[in-house]
C-alpha cells in the first residue's frame, strides 16, 4: 500500500519533469552554457518552494501521516561531497540527465538513455567497491 503511494508520487514527478522539458539534454546544455535562464528558474523556484514548505511544516508543527515526528535532518558533510560532485557534474553535462530525469528519459522513449542508466548502476556499484580507498 505504502509502495503504491510512492509509485503514484513518482509518476507525478516524472510527468512534471517530462512535460516541462527538464529531462532534455538540450536544456541542460543551454543551462551550462548560460544561454537561457530556463533551468535556473525551474530549479530556483523548486528550491524556494521547498524552503518555504519546510519552514511552514516546522512552524505549524506538522507531523507525518501516522503521527511520526518529521525527519528533517540534513546529510552530514564529508570530502566526498566535493570529490563526488566533481564527477557528477561532468556526467550530467555529457548525458543531459541527473538521476531522476534518466528514468523519465527512458520512459519517454529515449532508448539510448538505457546506456546512461546502465552506466549509473555500475558507477554506484564501483563506488561501493572502492569506498574504503577513497577519501571521505
Amino acid at each position: 500500500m505504502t509502495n503504491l503511494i510512492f509509485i503514484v508520487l513518482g509518476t507525478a514527478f516524472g510527468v512534471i519533469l517530462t512535460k516541462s522539458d527538464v529531462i532534455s539534454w538540450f536544456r541542460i546544455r543551454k543551462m551550462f552554457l548560460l544561454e537561457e535562464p530556463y533551468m535556473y528558474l525551474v530549479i530556483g523556484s523548486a528550491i524556494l518552494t521547498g524552503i518555504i514548505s519546510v519552514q511552514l511544516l516546522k512552524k505549524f508543527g506538522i507531523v507525518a501521516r501516522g503521527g511520526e515526528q518529521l525527519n528533517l535532518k540534513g546529510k552530514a558533510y564529508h570530502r566526498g561531497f566535493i570529490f563526488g560532485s566533481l564527477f557528477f557534474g561532468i556526467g550530467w553535462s555529457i548525458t543531459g540527465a541527473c538521476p531522476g530525469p534518466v528514468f523519465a528519459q527512458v520512459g519517454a522513449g529515449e532508448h539510448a538513455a538505457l546506456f546512461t542508466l546502465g552506466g549509473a548502476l555500475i558507477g554506484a556499484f564501483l563506488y561501493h567497491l572502492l569506498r574504503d580507498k577513497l577519501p571521505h
Partner: protein
Amino acid sequence: MELILNQWDWYIAGPLLGLFVPLLLVLGNKLLGISSSFEHMCTVIIPRSRNIMSRYDHQKNSWKFYFVIGIFLGGFLANFMLSARTMHFLPEEYYSLTGYLKLFLGGILIGFGTRYADGCTAGHTITGLALLNPASLAATVTFFISGLLFTFISVYLIT
C-alpha cells in the same frame, strides 16, 4: 486540455517539483532523494551485490525504488499520452556507437559521483537546500561549477 498538452513552463514545473519535499514528508516521512535508487536497483538485479554494498541501507531507501518506477511511468505518460506531439530529449548523434559509449561513461560518472557525494540534484539541491543544509549547498555549487566548466571546455576548446 490544450494547457496540459503544451509544454509546461518553469513557473508551473519548479514550484510543483519543490512541493514534493513536503508531500513526501507528510505522506511517508521521507526526504526526497533519488540517486540511492541506483544502489537499490543493483541489489535487485544482482542480489549478491549486497555483500559488497553492505553499507547501503536497503530498508531505509527501498521506497526510492518504487518512486523511480513511477518516474519511468511518468515519462511515458507525459510524452505519449499527455503531449500534443512526441518530443525528443536526446540529440540524434547519441544514437550511434560513440554516442552509446559517451552516455555509458557519463552514466558511470553520475552513479559513482552521486553516491560518493551522498546525493544529487534531488537530495542535495532540492531537499538539502530546503533544509538549509550548508553541506548540500557545497555539493550543489560543486556539481554546477564542474558541469559548467566541463561543458565550456568541451564546446569551445575541444571542437
